[in-house]
């Protein structure tokens, strides 16, 4: 068995994840390498979800009965846990949404309806990058179409990094908001936050960071990032689906208008007008995803108990090993950085002219789960002149043996279509 420095005790960790014992297709042990799409869930999270529904289920914030109080305490307790996890200065800066897409749409809509000095209109500009997930492209395209603001973006270099060579022409005095991904979901690239934030601050633009592929894998410190908004989702970090987070600086959350109206987000309502609850409730209209938030809290506890730095170290070692092994496969081209430096544990590649769909199908037959397609980042595929990629993505329970299984599986793919 391959031993690499920095690896976690995956034998122990894998015992927490019942699904990893699954056998598929008549006896193939599951090799789950689709963690960038969603992570598996540890027993510790599944138990908390179950407990919540079996013991404490109620709606939050209103009832005076014991279950309502327990549910509220659990829901708000999850907010405390998430706030601590991302080093938020205040728990009131943590807004629960249903996923990162909703978080990003929420910011775009806050700005779309905002007054000065945040107002986005036809005289202003929005800046994104070519490596964004569609969820950080389309909300800004919509905002641009509705307000007349100009949408601009940073292009990519050949080796899968942001081309910031014209940063001063891209982020200008007209720029109102800069939104970019911290870790690319298709290229694996870790982006240079500081350079972009510094330029954005120089021109007074707001900074939004899509941390969906970062929060599960590295220490996320919203104060160190110096962004104005940070979005991520729960299900990629051992939590359930249906729960996302938008962190925003308190003064912005106070100033910016609500987007969705309804129960929970109000102070008083009359037939003529309403006043709003303070953040975060101002942005959480309706019954929130209560169990899901509680589950996310349990996921945060789980990840913290392992240690985010340890997870990063594990994935870095594994990525280094995987990149090396994959580059040994004939005709394999990595789309993205070809070293483990400044990159996460998501590796996209093409294999000769075998279509990724076919690659994924033959791998699946061997029990190996990868993602194929454009990964909701079609502009990246267009940029590199490819229709799609095969993507293997690792997490804290992934092992060198699984990398080996992938490499052997790809050999089988080549033989099959050779």
């Amino acid at each position, binding site marked *: 068995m391959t031993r690499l420095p920095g690896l976690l005790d995956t034998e122990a960790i894998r015992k927490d994840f019942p699904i990893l014992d699954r056998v598929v297709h008549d006896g193939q042990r599951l090799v789950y390498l689709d963690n960038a799409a969603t992570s598996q869930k540890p027993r510790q999270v599944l138990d908390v979800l179950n407990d919540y529904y079996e013991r404490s289920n109620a709606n939050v914030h209103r009832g005076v009965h014991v279950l309502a109080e327990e549910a509220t305490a659990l829901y708000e307790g999850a907010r405390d846990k998430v706030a601590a996890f991302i080093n938020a200065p205040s728990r009131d800066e943590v807004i629960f949404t249903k996923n990162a897409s909703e978080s990003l749409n929420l910011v775009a809509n806050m700005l779309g309806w905002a007054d000065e000095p945040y107002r986005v209109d036809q005289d202003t500009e929005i800046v994104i990058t070519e490596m964004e997930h569609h969820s950080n492209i389309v909300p800004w395209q919509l905002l641009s179409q509705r307000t007349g603001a100009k949408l601009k973006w940073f292009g990519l270099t050949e080796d899968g990094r942001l081309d910031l060579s014209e940063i001063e022409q891209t982020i200008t005095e007209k720029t109102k908001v800069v939104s970019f991904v911290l870790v690319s979901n298709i290229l694996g690239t870790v982006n240079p936050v500081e350079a972009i934030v510094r330029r954005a601050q120089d021109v007074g633009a707001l900074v939004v960071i899509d941390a969906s592929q970062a929060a599960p894998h590295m220490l996320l410190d919203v104060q160190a990032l110096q962004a104005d908004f940070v979005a991520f989702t729960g299900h990629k970090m051992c939590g359930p689906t249906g729960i996302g987070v938008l962190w925003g600086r308190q003064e912005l959350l106070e100033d910016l208008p609500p987007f969705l109206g309804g129960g929970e987000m109000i102070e008083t309502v009359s037939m003529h007008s309403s006043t709003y609850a303070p953040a975060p409730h101002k942005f959480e209209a309706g019954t929130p995803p209560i169990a899901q938030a509680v589950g996310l809290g349990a996921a945060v506890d789980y990840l913290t108990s392992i240690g985010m730095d340890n997870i990063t170290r594990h994935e870095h070692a594994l990525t280094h090993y995987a990149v090396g092994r994959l580059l040994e496969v004939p005709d394999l081209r990595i789309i993205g950085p070809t070293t483990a430096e400044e990159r996460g544990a998501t590796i996209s590649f093409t294999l000769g002219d075998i*279509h990724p*769909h076919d690659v994924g*199908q033959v791998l699946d*037959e061997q029990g190996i789960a990868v993602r*194929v*397609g454009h990964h909701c980042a*079609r502009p990246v595929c267009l940029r590199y002149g490819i229709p*799609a990629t095969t993507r293997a993505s690792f997490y804290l329970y992934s092992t060198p043996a699984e990398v080996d299984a992938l490499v052997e599986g790809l050999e089988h793919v080549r033989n099959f*279509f050779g």
Partner: protein
Amino acid sequence: MKLDSMYQDVILDHYKNPHGRGLRNGDAEVHHVNPTCGDEITLRVRLDGDTIEDVSYEGQGCSISQASASVLNELLVGKELAEAHRIQETFLELMQSKGKAEPDDAMEEVLEDAIAFAGVSKYPARVKCALLSWMAWKDATSQALGETAGGKTA
């Protein structure tokens, strides 16, 4: 092995040596995509009265989608429209069978090489790949007959 039921030799042969690939003159052209995976096809239909004179296409995608377009070309060119629609409907029925259709001789007679796609119908994620060119053909034919407002190009 289940994989062989999807990747029949007939399918792999069509994938490696596609029939009628390339765009030629047509009465209507459509461009269809499969948004979940990025497979694309541009397809043209040329009619001579009720007879399909040519189906030409260009596209990118997996072996299933490419082989399916090749089989379509082989099967439909030269056929009367009514017969072609019958083949298309039979193929659709087979692909929507979730692997449960037991292709009989009658079906095999209609579908010829396309019967090889029976195994694909067990894989829900791949059914759309197999149907991409057939949906494009149906759309292009409607347009060529002036049945939709889409005009001659899509």
